[in-house]
């Protein structure tokens, strides 16, 4: 702690004259003044305690709305925009092919334009 030195010469006579002219400050209700100061200090002190106790909480509190907005956007994206592709296995493909072959045996010939008119007719009526 610094030690203050009174390096300017005092003039006791002038000081006394001034104090005689102005008198001492009046007495006041010290307890009331202290109480008023402490009452006004309660809220700022509480705020300082809270900030000191959870500095990271205080900082992250500002990020809560941002995180909530990000969550909403993410959920909407997952449900609406990003629909997963249906999975088709090799077994499924084989089964579909089998059914097609059984019900439309000449499909490959029809597609290749190798079938005759009778075959086309048969395929159309499903016989």
């Amino acid at each position, binding site marked *: 702690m610094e030690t203050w030195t009174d390096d300017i010469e005092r003039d006791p006579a002038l000081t006394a*004259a001034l104090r005689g002219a102005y008198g001492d400050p009046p007495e006041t209700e010290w307890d009331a003044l202290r109480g008023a100061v402490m009452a006004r200090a309660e809220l700022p*002190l509480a705020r300082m305690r809270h900030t000191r106790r959870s500095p990271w909480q205080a900082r992250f509190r500002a990020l809560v709305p941002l995180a909530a907005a990000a969550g909403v956007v993410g959920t909407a994206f997952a449900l609406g925009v990003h629909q997963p592709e249906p999975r088709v296995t090799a077994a499924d493909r084989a089964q579909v092919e089998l059914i097609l072959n059984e019900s439309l045996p000449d499909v490959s010939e029809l597609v290749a334009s190798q079938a005759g008119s009778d075959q086309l007719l048969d395929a159309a009526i499903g016989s």
Partner: protein
Amino acid sequence: MSGQGAHLALDVPLRPSAAAVAPVDDEAALVERVRAGDGAAFETLVNRYMRRAFSVAYRLLGQKEDAEDLVQEAFMAVLQRVDTFQAGRPFAPWFFRILVNRGLNARKARTLRAVDEIPETAAHHGPSPERDAERTELRDRLRTAMETLPERQRTIVQLFDLEGFAGPEIAEILEISDGTVRWHLHEARKTLKKALAPYERSA
């Protein structure tokens, strides 16, 4: 200053010097605790400085209620600005800088109630009507001379001669150099002594 003018007022006891109420070692720790919101530490500082703060505030503003308001505001400002307080520095000059700056602003801004009324504590009952008249005249001359001083000089006289602050303390509070404090005090004393000269000659 010597002579009758001095004799008339010397029965007023002098205030203890600033060194008598100098800050103690634990203030840095107290301020650190206040930073953490410790009410007990803050109350310790309030108890330590409340009376002197009121005295300085009263010198600046001249009214008890204004002085009480200023003391409260200064302590609230301490809480608002405690994070700007430099660790290792003494608390007192920092606190009184806040108080004096606010007091000077208030003195400029407010229409202060008349301070011509003689404080009870300044009233004397001399041994004779002639002596009372001399006291009254001396007091009026001195107060008038103080009013004519530039504000900075008046503030320095109030802090140095009436409140007992040391030159370096005042320099730190007003954020000016020691030499500037010394010069202002010298100039103010010249003016005040000129006002009191008739009393010195009559001695």
